[in-house]
């Protein structure tokens, strides 16, 4: 079958979506760096001791560092939350439809395509083709679903971790402290889970598909790239007369 590569680019992301992506990325960076600086005790610390020491000295103590982390967290969740509400129909709903993996069948299909993609990186399973993908591929969908669920968990537990000691009297009800301790476990676990996925996300954006990174800056994608990587999406764009 001879295929001619379609020429040109198409606008696939609006400026506000690009802004929210980089806003999210910037706040993640700041919140991870400050968050790792807060957790101090040797038994519970996530990073080598020099980091909490450095960050706490830089900010003049853990009280300031924790406050900065909390303000950053509230700004992060607040801006994204308000943006999501205001643009629910235009941006959020279509994004969720494309990205959320909700059924076991979809999860298995995405896992299979992700495994094949990963195997191809190492020259394995070469005889297996990645099944045709839509706007987001299997790995992106799994990562997206995980990030959305983790972000909700991070925002809600973070709010409790910050506000509960200020608003509740822990000595009156053992549950308050118990919730606090488990909120910390969930907060940390969800962050680690997202960081795990981000390693792959950043690798693909920088090394394997710099075109995607370019799209996240300019908003434009090469039509040939879409046709090659996301054939199902290409078909639907064609149907809509956009390409």
């Amino acid at each position, binding site marked *: 079958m001879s295929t001619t590569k379609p020429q040109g680019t198409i606008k696939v992301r609006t400026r506000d979506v690009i802004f929210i992506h980089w806003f999210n990325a910037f706040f993640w960076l700041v919140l991870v760096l400050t968050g790792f600086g*807060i*957790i*101090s*005790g*040797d*038994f*519970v*610390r*996530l990073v080598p001791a020099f980091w*909490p020491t450095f960050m*706490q000295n830089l900010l003049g*103590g*853990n*009280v300031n560092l*924790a406050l900065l982390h909390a303000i950053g967290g509230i700004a992060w969740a607040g801006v994204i939350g308000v943006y999501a509400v205001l643009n629910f129909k235009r941006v959020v709903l279509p994004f969720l439809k494309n990205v959320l993996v909700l059924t076991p069948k979809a999860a298995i299909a995405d896992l299979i395509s992700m495994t094949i993609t*990963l195997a191809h*990186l*190492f*020259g394995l399973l070469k005889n297996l083709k990645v099944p045709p993908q839509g706007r987001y591929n299997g790995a992106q969908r799994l990562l997206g679903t995980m990030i959305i669920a983790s972000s909700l968990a991070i925002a809600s537990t973070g709010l409790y*971790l910050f506000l*509960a*000691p200020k608003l509740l*009297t*822990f*000595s*009156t009800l053992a549950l308050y*402290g*118990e919730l*606090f*301790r*488990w909120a*910390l*476990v969930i907060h*940390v*676990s969800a962050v*680690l889970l997202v*960081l*795990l996925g981000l*390693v*792959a996300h950043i*690798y693909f954006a920088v*090394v*394997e598909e710099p075109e995607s990174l370019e799209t996240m800056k300019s908003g434009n994608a090469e039509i040939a790239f879409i046709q090659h990587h996301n054939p199902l999406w290409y078909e639907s764009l064609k149907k809509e007369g956009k390409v």
Partner: protein
Amino acid sequence: MVAKYVMLADTTRCINCKACEVACRAEWDTPLGYSRDWVKEVESVNAKGMPELQIFPGRCQHCDDAPCVEVCPTGASWKREDGIVLVDHDICSGCELCVPACPYDARWLNPVTNTISKCTFCQPRIDKGLQPACVETCVGNALIFGDANDPNSEVSILLKTKEWQRLITDEVNIGPNHYYYTAGKTIPVEVMPKLHERHLAGKSIESIVNPLGTIGIGGMMAVFLGAGVKKLVDRRKEVSEKEDNHEHH
């Protein structure tokens, strides 16, 4: 040389008047029913079949390897260079992860401040050159406080001249800086430190979340570093093959 503060309790001199408790509660304005120090009484029957009462004044032992510090997520629990273990009330969340970590039951959640209370060796007083409130009030002169790094201090001299014991067991030996003189009597098990069941949430972070996170993120980095290297090698090969073909033509 930086100081190393220690507390000595001569149990043979303690008359169980509990003036130390009263002084501590007054000094620190602790809520009703709570105290940062205590006097434990242990009744037993001695070798002659006679009842015997042993008395152990106690408080935070300002341990060298303090698990309460190691388990504290916010760094509110910390150890000063001179060995005093303190709680920073501005940052303490009241999560109580440190409470069961202490084998001496020296910590409690203060219902008034919502933070952890414990003995500080009266740090503000000693920074002014005073003695801790309990020591100053001790009727029997059973409590002696001072700098063990100063060879001329009373504690240094006493530590050299008498047989002191610390509350340590095979299981719990975290370097307490509180010494007891019992005139050779064995310290009863009731006074010895206990390993408590720590909070499950704290243990989960320590034994599951952090190791899995480290292995997971480390593994991912290794995998993608490998993928990156392979890509580089493949590209080099491709380029040199192309160049070879070029030369052949």
